[in-house]
């Protein structure tokens, strides 16, 4: 325990955050809001990584380094995802995911 | 006399002893000390603008060669009362929130703005041992707080629900985030040499090396150019271009006092930051014997010097357009800062490992001079090319324009 806080508390918060983000991904109409849900899920993962680093191997660096790479991937995902949304918005004038079914044939 | 030597630290210790004598438990002594300390520190940036605005107005009156505060009707002797006058006016002014505004966002934007500006002061060393908190991530903390002011600008622009405000906010955010990259990269060059994020360590390292302004002039230049847009200073001022877009993102605020205050606090903080990173902070002669000298004399002089440079730039240069600012930051400052990191990294590592600080300083300086020799011809060539292009356009346009007449 660090400062009297058990590891489980962090894991529970991360699990809850992950599920809230997952709900956002599943239930929102707007594509931008869906991406916001994905960002919340990535945050939950990072909480887990850092918490495990702190509680299991504080002298090591693996957890922090992994968290850094998650940041890079999150930024890349946000950049490409939102660029796609903007491109779709420009051609189809919508960001509502339900309306984007051109590939269904 | 012994007490006066280290005034601030002694007052702090006296206060702690006073609380401990009163029989309070340790935890409460700590809480009260931290609270009072935080309050005192927050008052510094909130109160100093009253003096510095006066100074700035005198400077601008001299530069523009016009009547200054001394001739103001309600200014009192030497215009001393003008700033309090303005503050009272600002405080009692009617505050109309536009009916269509997003009330919560609209009202909390200035609070966020001021909060971020105050928070920066938590890690700035004001004298030997006089620092809010010597965080291990010191300077990186300040850099990441820059994100907060971006959010505040967006909140103000969005909350006003006014197309002018929103457009100006997007413009302002564009300049704010563009300067962030050269800012981080120039700070990174300092961190590389010092080997620590902590602000007192940066000052101590400059005691060992020379002032970083002399060791790494290019880094200092990039840093200076990137801190100008935070407080809205020309030539990088479109966050709030008074004469062009009225008041930028806070057009819809009838009381812009909070933004004005935050802007001034930012300018002060950025000046101190430059003085700390590149001019040796509070260090100076006799500071070991009389520590209070560092805060009152050396740091104040250096800060005032940096501020005067910023004001001179502001009041004597024209304003750049947003796209020109973005061109400067992305096509000049950012590549230059990246190359700067590469050059310094190579220069520092090609030296023998037992080289003393002075050898290293000279090596960094030589690397900077080498960079100058490469950068200046490139700039000159681009300038010539641009001028040739303009000449061509002018020649092509001339005959047709005559025909129209």
């Amino acid at each position, binding site marked *: 325990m660090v400062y009297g806080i058990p590891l489980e508390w962090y894991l529970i918060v991360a699990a809850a955050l992950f599920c809230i983000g997952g709900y956002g991904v599943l239930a929102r109409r707007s594509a931008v809001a869906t991406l916001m849900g994905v960002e919340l899920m990535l945050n939950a993962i990072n909480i887990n990584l850092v918490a495990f680093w702190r509680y299991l191997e504080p002298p090591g660096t693996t957890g922090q380094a992994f968290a850094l790479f998650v940041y890079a991937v999150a930024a890349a995902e946000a950049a490409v995802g939102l660029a796609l949304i903007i491109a779709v918005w420009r051609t189809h004038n919508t960001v509502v995911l339900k309306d984007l079914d051109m590939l269904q044939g | 006399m012994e007490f006066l030597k280290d005034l601030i630290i002694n007052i702090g210790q006296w206060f702690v002893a006073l609380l401990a004598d009163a029989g309070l438990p340790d935890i409460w002594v700590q809480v009260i000390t931290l609270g009072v300390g935080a309050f005192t520190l927050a008052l510094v940036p909130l109160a100093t603008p009253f003096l510095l605005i006066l100074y700035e107005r005198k400077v601008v009156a001299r530069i523009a060669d016009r009547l200054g505060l001394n001739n103001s009707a309600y200014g009192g002797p030497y215009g001393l009362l003008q700033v309090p006058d303005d503050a009272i006016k600002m*405080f009692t002014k009617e505050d109309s929130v*536009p009916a*269509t505004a997003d009330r919560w966002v609209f009202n909390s934007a200035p*609070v966020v703005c001021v909060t971020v500006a105050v928070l920066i002061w938590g890690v700035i060393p004001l004298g030997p041992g006089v620092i809010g*908190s010597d965080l291990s991530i010191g300077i990186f903390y300040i850099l990441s707080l820059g994100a907060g002011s971006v959010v505040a600008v967006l909140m103000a622009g969005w909350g006003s629900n006014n197309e002018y405000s929103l457009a100006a906010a997007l413009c302002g955010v*564009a300049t704010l985030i563009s300067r962030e990259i050269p800012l981080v990269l120039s700070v990174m060059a300092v*961190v590389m040499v010092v080997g620590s994020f902590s602000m007192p360590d940066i000052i101590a390292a400059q005691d060992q090396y020379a002032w970083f302004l002399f060791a790494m002039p290019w880094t200092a230049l990039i840093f200076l150019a990137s801190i100008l847009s935070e407080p809205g200073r020309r030539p990088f001022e479109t966050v709030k271009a008074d004469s062009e877009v009225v008041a930028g993102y806070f057009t819809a605020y009838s009381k812009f006092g909070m933004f004005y205050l935050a802007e001034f606090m930012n300018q002060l903080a950025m000046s101190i930051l430059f003085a700390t990173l590149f001019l040796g902070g509070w260090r100076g002669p006799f500071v070991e014997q009389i520590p209070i000298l560092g805060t009152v004399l050396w740091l104040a002089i250096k800060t005032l010097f940096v501020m005067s440079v910023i004001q001179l730039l502001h009041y004597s240069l024209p304003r750049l357009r947003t796209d020109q600012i*973005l061109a400067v930051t992305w096509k000049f400052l950012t590549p230059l800062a990246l190359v700067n990191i590469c050059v310094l990294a190579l220069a520092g590592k090609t030296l023998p490992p037992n080289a003393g600080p002075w050898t290293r300083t000279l090596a960094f300086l030589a690397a900077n001079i080498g960079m100058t020799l490469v950068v200046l011809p490139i700039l000159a060539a681009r300038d010539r090319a641009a001028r040739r292009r303009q000449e061509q356009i002018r020649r092509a346009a001339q005959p047709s324009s005559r025909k129209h007449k």
Partner: protein
Amino acid sequence: MLNQFAFIGFLLIVALILGAATPILARLVRPQKAIPRKLEMDECDMRTHGETWVEFKAQYYTLVIVFLLFDVAAVFLLPWALAYNTLELYTAIEVIAFILMLLGGLVYLWRKGALEWL
């Protein structure tokens, strides 16, 4: 570690209180004479038209993307910069490779005209 941040926490609370107190106190002394015309949105007496909607240039948007990616790159370089004094020459060369990659991207965009923001 936490002791260092305790002060920042207190400073945050103090700053929030000071920032919020000023407008609330000002509310007590200021005049309140709101008329509908005053609460309308305008700039230099130009009333805004309809919905707050302007066709914002998507170029600003590409600017934020470039910024975000350079932000991430800077965060990757910062720990290296901190450890620089203890590292060998070859790490500097690795980092220069990293930076050259980014510079390559920037120069490519520049050549393609993607850095003309307006």
